[in-house]
């Protein structure tokens, strides 16, 4: 597997301009002859599909939801970063770039991150022009807040639903193109394979979830915008249907998978309440701007929060990280919560929780001010827990939230399969080993609105339009494989439900490949996953047929992929013998703080499929830091 990152020449701030100029252009009159398939309709997918159609390409867009507006980008709460420096507080493109490289624990590609910071300002302009109702000040100009460990106020937000408002902006742009017949939209349609012809991605296999029809679509290029794989843990803040299937099946066709072990555990989620739990709910990190995190000083202190006096409380983030305090980055805040719970100081019935307390802010600013900032989040919390966060502290606990790993892409967002591009959370590119708050929306939209429209042209200019049609045998073969797998899943007729297998996998992943990992635990996990996968193919029970809506069948295919992917994730975690960002190895730490090994691991690990996860081959893309110097990340 050849990994050419195609980082453009020139100084960091000239690279994107240089690359845009180097890329070949497609003649405007020829654009309509090229067809591009966009899989997924979240921020990355909807923005890519709309922007490509505006340029004149024929676009087909696919999503498994009933409407493109429902992709999980919609659930992002907190905000979106942009280096506008509207606050005059010292922000700049370079500072956003610097913060993102450092926040990612020096495991991202500098050139990509700089481009992301550069494009961040265009995203806000674009969204406002579309009518996205960002929060405003009384003078009518846009409001900003400080978010997720940033020391400048660069986060734009729309109450607690920035994701929904940005997605509705991209969905509106996409809908406009659908209405003009420039995009053909396929909702309730799931991608189940990539068709590779003569080494290039030239189509996909899909299943129409309503009729069960398995179809192929041929095109000149394919763009995957299919999100992350957090649901490998079963319980996560991802939507129930989020899955790894599109990226995993592309991986099986030859796309390198980079850094699968980089997962982000978000510090502020509502704790698990019982075995029936189907997913976890995030409470926006913005709450940490005004909430103070604490646990009792004494072990096993079961008094009510209000009865514990201040001198018997441990505000551990403020104590351990005095300069960042409650705003310490996500990986650090999550691990600190785990540590105090491991010490037996966790709160609630399960002991797996910490307090997020607004008492002092309410005293300082008044209840109304807090309600204006977080009213909808407090409301949501009260609905789920039946507790009132105005009068008693919230109970929170870390939960899997985002995955930094994904399909490896070069600077043009092209995977190791020519013609297969990957945008948004589905790729591995910009966040290194840890993503900073309010950066996911930024990346999805930067990729879709402003990167792919340029870089895909560079690829297409070298391709003859419509050179491959769906009659090539590779299409029928790929479709037959998908049909065969569907038949096999329906034919097992075992005893255990799909969810049962998924829950078991999730428990293995969370306990052995979650917040802290060790060689012993990972080896056990790999063996356990292999055994579970064997059982799955013997004993899963999928009822019904493949000819109507069959949600168990859909889930079964996704869980089958998670059962392979989970093993690769553990192998990646095992091979990365260092701690960095969201990847924490017990063996590499200094008193609870991550110890990076830049000598041996300053690279992206890229896995090549060789038939089974145990045989996958690990390659490396060496990372070079020419602008931000490698340093120990300290938030003390």
């Amino acid at each position, binding site marked *: 597997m050849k990994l050419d990152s195609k980082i453009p020449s020139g100084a960091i701030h000239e690279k994107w301009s240089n690359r845009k100029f180097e890329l070949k252009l497609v003649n405007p009159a020829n654009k309509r002859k090229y067809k591009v398939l966009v899989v997924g309709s979240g921020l990355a997918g909807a923005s890519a599909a709309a922007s490509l159609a505006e340029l004149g390409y024929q676009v087909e867009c696919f999503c498994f939801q*009933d409407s493109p507006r429902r992709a*999980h980008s919609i659930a992002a709460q907190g905000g979106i970063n942009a280096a506008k420096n509207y606050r005059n507080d010292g922000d700049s493109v370079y500072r956003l770039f610097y913060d993102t490289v450092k926040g990612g624990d020096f495991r991202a590609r500098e050139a990509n991150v700089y481009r992301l910071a550069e494009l961040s300002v*265009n995203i806000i302009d674009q969204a406002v022009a*579309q*009518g996205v109702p960002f929060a405003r000040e009384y003078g*009518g100009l846009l409001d900003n807040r400080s978010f997720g460990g940033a020391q400048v106020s660069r986060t734009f937000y729309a109450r607690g639903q920035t994701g929904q408002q940005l997605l509705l902006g991209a969905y509106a742009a996409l809908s406009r193109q*659908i209405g003009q017949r420039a995009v053909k939209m396929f909702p309730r349609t799931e991608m189940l394979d990539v068709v590779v012809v003569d080494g290039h991605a030239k189509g996909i296999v899909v299943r129409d979830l309503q009729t069960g029809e398995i179809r192929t679509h041929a095109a000149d290029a394919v763009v995957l915008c299919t999100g992350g794989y957090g649901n490998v843990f079963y319980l996560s803040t991802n939507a129930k249907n989020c899955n790894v299937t599109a990226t995993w099946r592309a991986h099986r066709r030859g796309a390198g998978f980079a850094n699968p072990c980089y997962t982000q555990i978000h510090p502020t989620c509502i704790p698990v309440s019982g075995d029936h739990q189907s997913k976890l709910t995030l409470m926006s990190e913005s709450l940490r701007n005004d909430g103070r995190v604490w646990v009792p000083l004494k072990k096993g202190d079961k008094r009510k929060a209000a009865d514990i006096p201040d001198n018997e409380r441990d505000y551990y983030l403020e104590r351990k990280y005095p300069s960042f305090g409650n705003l310490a980055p996500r990986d650090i805040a999550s691990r600190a919560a785990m540590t105090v719970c491991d010490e037996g100081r966790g709160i609630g019935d399960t002991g797996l929780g910490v307090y997020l307390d607004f008492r002092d802010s309410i005293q300082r600013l008044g209840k109304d001010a807090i309600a204006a900032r977080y009213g909808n989040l407090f409301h949501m919390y009260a*609905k789920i827990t039946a507790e009132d966060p105005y009068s008693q502290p919230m109970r929170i606990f870390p939960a899997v939230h985002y995955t930094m790993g994904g399909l490896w892409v070069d600077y043009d967002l092209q995977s190791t399969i020519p013609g297969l591009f990957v945008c948004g959370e589905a790729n591995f590119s910009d966040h290194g080993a840890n993503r900073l708050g309010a950066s996911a929306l930024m990346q999805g939209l930067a990729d879709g609105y402003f990167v792919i429209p340029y870089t895909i042209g560079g690829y297409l200019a070298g391709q003859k339009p419509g050179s491959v049609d769906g009659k090539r045998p590779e299409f029928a073969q790929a479709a037959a494989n998908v049909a065969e797998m569907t038949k096999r899943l329906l034919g097992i007729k075992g005893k255990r439900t799909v*969810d049962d297998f998924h829950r078991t996998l999730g428990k293995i992943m969370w306990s052995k490949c979650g917040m802290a990992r060790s060689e012993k635990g990972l080896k056990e996990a790999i063996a356990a996953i292999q055994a579970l996968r064997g059982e799955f193919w013997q004993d899963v029970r999928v009822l*019904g047929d493949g000819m109507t809506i069959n949600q168990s069948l859909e889930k079964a295919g996704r869980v089958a992929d998670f059962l392979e992917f989970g093993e690769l994730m553990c192998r990646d975690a095992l091979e990365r013998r260092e701690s960095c960002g969201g990847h924490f190895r017990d063996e590499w730490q200094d008193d609870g703080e991550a110890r990076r090994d830049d000598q041996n691991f300053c690279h992206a690990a890229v896995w090549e499929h060789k038939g089974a996860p145990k045989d996958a081959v690990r390659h490396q893309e060496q990372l070079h830091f020419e602008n931000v110097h490698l340093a120990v990340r300290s938030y003390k």
Partner: protein
Amino acid sequence: MTGNTTMKLILHVWRQQKRSTAADFKQDGRMVRYELDGVSPDMSFLEMLDVLNERLIRKGEEPIVFDHDCREGICGSCSLMIDGEPHGPQSGTTTCQLHMRSFRDGAEIWIEPWRAKAFPVVKDLMVDRSAFDRVVQAGAFISVNTGVSQDANAIPVPKADADRAFDAATCIGCGACVAACKNASAMLFVGAKVSHFLHLPQGRVERETRARNLVAAMDKEGFGNCTNQNECQAACPKEIPVRVIAEMNREFLRAKAVEEPPSKKRVGGDG
């Protein structure tokens, strides 16, 4: 938290194998009775259905189909008529955020899909809401291409206007308004789209065409008209106010008063 007490429920659930057609909306659909015990009050309504489905699968019966995804009240996928109320008894709440503690032990609960001609039933409790997407495609957008925008702060928006736009923009497109309405009217949904853009300067440029096109698309999909019952507002999980319907009516009348453009098709080139 409510401790270890569990509840026992009697559920009546709409089961339908075949997709509804204009000629036969009901198809083979019928209410089926299930008894379910061991329900924790901390479960969400959908988690309660998950438990029922797991038991059905173990018994060899096909699980109940229902739309769901984010399970945190924002994606708008979930869509159940619970005891005759869209999203159930709690106001301002989607089904996924409704918890079983809102019901009493031993309760009998009726669960049906959205009922509206424009939303055919796909299977069991799942309906086809693509009519909403087609309405949006007719004009619920600002015609701006990627990359041509000016600096975001070049368009100041008075905070009160921005807040009014936002109140409308919170719509999650779940369809509860249609399900709640005896006329199956989509006017709260469409009004929300009109209102969102109406209160923003950048949205006002296309106000006449937008009002005309959205109303025409809504009528074409077979949604009914508004007779001011305000059931939609009561059912809306995002509590969108009925003022958006008044705003839409005003915009529609205003558009009628403004002369229609001579032709939308441009004749000839620019030279």
